[in-house]
């Protein structure tokens, strides 16, 4: 309908916009994301959890096209479950990342989503893998999504190797909060998942619990 009054996100594709981040520490990883899903100018979901479980101690962070990202996460979740049954062992984070990267690379032209894979396994402990464009690279920390461009300076300056769990959580929350305040496609609440040998702990930070900076 030409000129329909409501924000015409009805025609536009649903994207997660996004700021996602993952940080390794001795003993595990911290993964975080914002919660905004937009279709054109309209926000269709302001509390979407972009941290999708792939297995008990492996999560992936979604960004880009919502449909593509959810489809990839579902496929990898399925494959990992079978793989884990075949091996009779919890899957390695590298295995999950390789599966994600395999799909992202093979269907590179058709898909427009980026999934960041992070988790803990008994072989290498906490690991973060980036799979942008179909590559596979392990990093001490990684940021992604449209909001990440605004915080490259902050994360490069604030990251210190050998941070403890609480420091990593605060680092992640700060970075995502800063990105959310600058990027139109990121916003809402902050979801955090902390993955260690003991398992995965999910947290949500709303309103006043989100770090504030000089102008808030």
């Amino acid at each position, binding site marked *: *309908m030409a000129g*329909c*009054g*409501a*924000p*015409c996100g*009805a025609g536009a*594709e*649903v994207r997660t916009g996004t700021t996602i981040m993952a940080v390794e520490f001795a003993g595990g990883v911290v993964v975080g994301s914002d919660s905004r*899903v937009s*279709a054109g100018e*309209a926000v*269709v*979901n302001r*509390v*979407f959890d972009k941290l999708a479980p792939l297995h008990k101690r492996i999560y992936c962070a979604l960004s880009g*096209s*919502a*449909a*593509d*990202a*959810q*489809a990839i996460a*579902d496929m990898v979740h399925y494959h990992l479950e079978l793989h884990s049954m075949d091996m009779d062992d919890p899957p390695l984070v590298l295995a999950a990342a390789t599966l994600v990267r395999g799909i992202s690379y*093979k*269907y590179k*032209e*058709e898909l427009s989503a980026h999934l960041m894979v992070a988790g803990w396994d008994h072989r290498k402990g906490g690991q973060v893998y980036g799979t942008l464009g179909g590559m596979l690279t392990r990093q001490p920390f990684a940021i992604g999504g449209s909001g990440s461009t605004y915080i490259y300076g902050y994360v490069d300056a604030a990251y210190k190797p050998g941070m403890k769990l609480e420091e990593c959580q605060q680092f992640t929350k700060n970075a995502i909060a800063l990105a959310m305040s600058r990027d139109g496609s990121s916003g809402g609440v902050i979801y955090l998942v902390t993955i260690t040998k003991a398992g995965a702990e999910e947290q949500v930070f709303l309103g006043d619990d989100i770090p504030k900076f000089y102008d808030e």
Partner: protein
Amino acid sequence: MDVATSPPAPQGGFSFLNCLRNTALEQGLVSQGFQAPKARKTGTTIAGLVCADGVVLGADTRATDDMVVAEKNCLKIHYLAPNIYCCGAGVAADAEATTQLLSSKLELHSLATGRPPRVVTANRFLRQMLFRYQGHIGASLIVAGLDSTGAHLYSVHPHGSSSRLPYNSMGSGAGAAISVLEDRFKPKMELLEAQELVADAIQAGILGDLGSGSSVDLCVITQDGARLLRGYRTPAAPGKRLGRYRYRAGTTAVLSEKVELRSLEVLEEHVQSMDVE
């Protein structure tokens, strides 16, 4: 898939070959000033919310063909299972066909598993099917119901993404409806209050969006089953005409009458017999 080589051989499922034909036809038509027919969208305001006793779904009843109202009382709330219903927005035919297919699949799945269907199952079928068709099936749906794990609501977009939410609205009137829901939604609302809230949300869409109109349909799903409340509210009833626009015979006085006979001469006669053997 290597896009540089020839297209893959058609295998079962949707064939996109006619899209090439349609583009060629359209280009030919445009040069003569014609326009190819557009798929009819339902305009639409649909909404749903999860309340204490179950879920409440709502929809308007107007179907539009560009700027013409094609149907004043269409039903946009579709049956999926005895405990699961679905509101459809976007392309009318796609929403209708998709929900019918989904309903059949859910029934078969339920028979195979020996359990009543779950809302999460409906969501997954929908997501996987819509993703497979890469957004060409223009159906935006709100699926909600009450199953053994509780009351759930999912909103699914044409490209195959979905979100689980306590309340949501979709369609061209979504902006108007969501503002009402955001203002007054509370978790675990009483059923009557929830019904009124959904009806108010749809009403906001009916009054504030050109693509939505006529009346509000509601569907309430609780432990006692599903109730479809057709025409729950009619915020924009057609007005009562104050006068008559027909003139009775004799309104205009006849002053005089003149009859003239015309005689016609037969010039030529041509008979053709019909073969009735």
